[in-house]
Each structure stands twice: as structure tokens, then as C-alpha cells.
């Protein structure tokens, strides 16, 4: 299986009072194609910074980042922008939608920017909005949408170019239980399409949907463990029976 993300000694320090703050401190990480990985850890442990470093939104103080085998830590801003447009989908807690464009226009924008035809872009955008349960809001401007709806529009926009890597920071932060379920189903679809998913989250449902769990503390990965294949189904059910009895 090929590595989609590889980091070696990845670090990001901020100046602090006295000693620098080690937001990310010597992270070695390999994410393979089609893998979904969640990152948990207390607030301020460096998990969002790690996501920003991998997506090129922040530059490392030290260390190497490679995406799909290509070293990217030295790329220019323009080269990063090209890479993000085609290869990386970003989902943030703050959704940065263009206020003057309708939901569907926001979603199709990245597709149009890489040369997809108007028709195909519109079709893909509407499909995604439909799957996320906001198809009936396609013509609305962002300020006519609820927080949860805007978040799903932003997610659709991140996915419209079928990126090999999806980086998500609290993707269900503003969502109710039902909308979270729709997003989790969409993520399951990404796995089937062999897209790689890195999720920073506090939401146990989102974390548990991944194949692998990273735990960060003080800028370091203190635990890297598989969530899949751990327990046979019968064992889980047996535990539940003991538990519900």
C-alpha cells in the first residue's frame, strides 16, 4: 500500500515567554492509501497544528512532510495552492464559504477552478449536497443556512474534486446527531473510494468511525493504535449483553 502522507521529525514551535511552545514536536507518521485515522487529545495538544502542517497552512520549524511520495515542506505558496486544490480537501470548524455565492455555487467552485466543465461540476456538487442531506438548500446563500447546513456545504466543497487526502478539523462540531450520521456515512464512502482521511475530533462517534487512532499530548503522538480488527463481532456483542443485562 502506498503512503499518502509521510512525516519525519515534523515540528512546529511558537515563541513563548522564555522557552518556545512546542506545538508539534518530532512527529513521525505514515498514512497509507484508503486509511482513515482519527486524532484525539486534550485542547492545545497540537492536533490542529499537525493538520495545518500536513495541509501546508503552516510551515514546519523542522522536519519533513511528503504527500504521495513528493516532498512538500519546501513548496512555494502557489504550488501549495495548486496541490490543495486538486489533491487535498480541507474541512474546518469555521467554514469560510463565499457569502455572495449560493450553496451549490460554493461547492462547484473548486471543480471549475481545475477545469471541470460547468455541467459536470454542477452535477457533482448537487450529488454531494444531496448525500449530505442539504440538497434542498442548494440555491440558498450561506446566510440563509443554519450552522450545521453551512458545515455540510463546506464539506461538500472539500470533497468535490475527489481529493486523495481529506483533512478535517472537528467536522461535526456544529452538527446534531442526525447530521453527524450523514457525515459518517459519507466518510465510509470515502474509505471505499480509497481516499485517505485524517480527522481531528472530540466526538467519540467520529473517532470510532476511523480504522486507526492517534492520541496526542504536548505536541507528541503518545499512542498509535488500530481500532479495526481488534475484537470479533461475537465478543463485542457478548460484552454488550453482559452490559445491558
Amino acid at each position, binding site marked *: 500500500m502506498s503512503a499518502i502522507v509521510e512525516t519525519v521529525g515534523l515540528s512546529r514551535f511558537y515563541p513563548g515567554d522564555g522557552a518556545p511552545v512546542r506545538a508539534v514536536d518530532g512527529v513521525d507518521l505514515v498514512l497509507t492509501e484508503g486509511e482513515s485515522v482519527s486524532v484525539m487529545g*486534550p485542547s492545545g495538544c497540537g492536533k490542529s497544528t499537525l493538520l495545518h502542517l500536513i495541509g501546508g497552512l503552516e510551515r514546519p520549524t523542522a522536519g519533513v512532510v511528503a504527500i504521495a511520495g513528493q516532498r512538500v515542506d519546501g513548496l512555494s505558496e502557489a504550488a501549495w495552492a495548486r496541490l490543495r486544490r486538486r489533491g487535498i480537501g480541507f474541512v474546518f470548524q469555521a467554514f469560510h464559504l463565499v457569502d455572495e455565492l449560493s450553496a451549490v455555487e460554493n461547492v462547484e467552485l473548486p471543480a471549475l477552478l481545475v477545469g471541470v466543465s460547468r455541467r459536470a461540476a454542477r452535477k457533482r456538487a448537487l450529488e454531494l449536497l444531496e448525500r449530505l442531506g442539504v440538497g434542498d438548500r442548494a440555491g440558498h446563500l450561506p446566510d440563509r443556512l443554519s450552522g450545521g447546513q453551512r458545515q455540510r456545504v463546506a464539506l461538500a466543497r472539500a470533497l468535490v474534486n475527489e481529493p486523495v487526502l481529506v483533512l478535517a478539523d472537528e467536522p461535526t462540531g456544529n452538527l446534531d446527531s442526525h447530521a453527524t450520521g450523514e457525515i459518517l*456515512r459519507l466518510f465510509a464512502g470515502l474509505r471505499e473510494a480509497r481516499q485517505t482521511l485524517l480527522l481531528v475530533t472530540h466526538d*467519540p462517534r467520529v473517532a*470510532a468511525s476511523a480504522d486507526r487512532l492517534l*492520541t496526542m499530548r504536548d505536541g507528541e503522538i503518545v499512542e498509535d493504535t488500530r481500532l479495526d480488527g481488534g475484537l470479533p463481532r461475537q465478543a463485542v456483542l457478548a460484552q*454488550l449483553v453482559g*452490559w445491558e443485562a
Partner: protein
Amino acid sequence: MLALLAKEPAHGYELRQRLVQALGPIGEVVNPGQIYVTLARLERAELVRGVQVEQSAAPDKKVYEATPAGREHVASWLMDSSWTKVAPTEFHLKLVAAAATGLADPVALIDAQRRELLRRLREVQRLAESEPPDGDGALLLEGSALRLQADIRWLEACEQRWSGRRAG
């Protein structure tokens, strides 16, 4: 099981069918052997009564029904609102004991427990996805998933407390 017999008598195999119907995939875990062991225990406690029924083409089978004492037992069980879930209490005691004795690192215990609960939640979510959303099985699995989520969130609070203590 006793509650399922309180409705109407059944033999062991029927009872298992009822369990599966009532509980969905969780009911499938109960193997037939466990059913007969439990029935025998309930019979000794005089909460159920077994009656041999002759069959022409097959060996006799035993049909079980709830006794009046058994029905009363079910009724008081139905009215009992205590919420038996001691895991958080016990885990809390483990953390205190781990720190006091130095036999384990509380934060490591929390990490291990969270990992375990996330694995369970993952399996429960997978199972729920494969169930028809309106079925009884899905509803029960949702209950399990919500409890696991609550416990995982509580472990996060534990982590904050105990990693603070470790640093301080």
C-alpha cells in the same frame, strides 16, 4: 428470559427465537445451551415451571411457563428504576488506587480504556449501519452507542484531571 416467558409459555427453542426477535443481533449471542442452563436455574428457584409435552414424531419436549412468583419477580423488576452501571465508579476507584499505589499510571489506564471503548463503539456503529434503521435491533444498538459515547466523554474529563495532577 423470565420476562419473555411471563407473556406466554414456550420451549427452549421458541424462547431463543423470541430473544433474537426482541434484541436483534445482541440476542443471537445467547447460545441454546445458556438458555437451558438458565431455565433450569429459574426452575429451581420456582420462578418457572416446566411441563413435558408428548410429541408423536419427535422426542418429548418441555414447555416452560412463568409461575405466579416468577410473574411477580418480573413485575418488580419492571418497576425497579435503579440504573445498574457501575463501570464509571469502579474505574474511578482504579484511577485513585493506581495513583495511590504507584502500580499503574492513571493516564495510561485512561488511554487503554478509551481505546477499548472506541473499538466497541466502532463495532456497534458498524452493526447499527447494517440493521434496518426502524428495527428494534437498531434502537437497542443506539442505546449502547450512546452509553459508550457518554463513557468516552467522561474518560476525556478523567484525562484532563489526571494529566493535570501528573504535571503538577
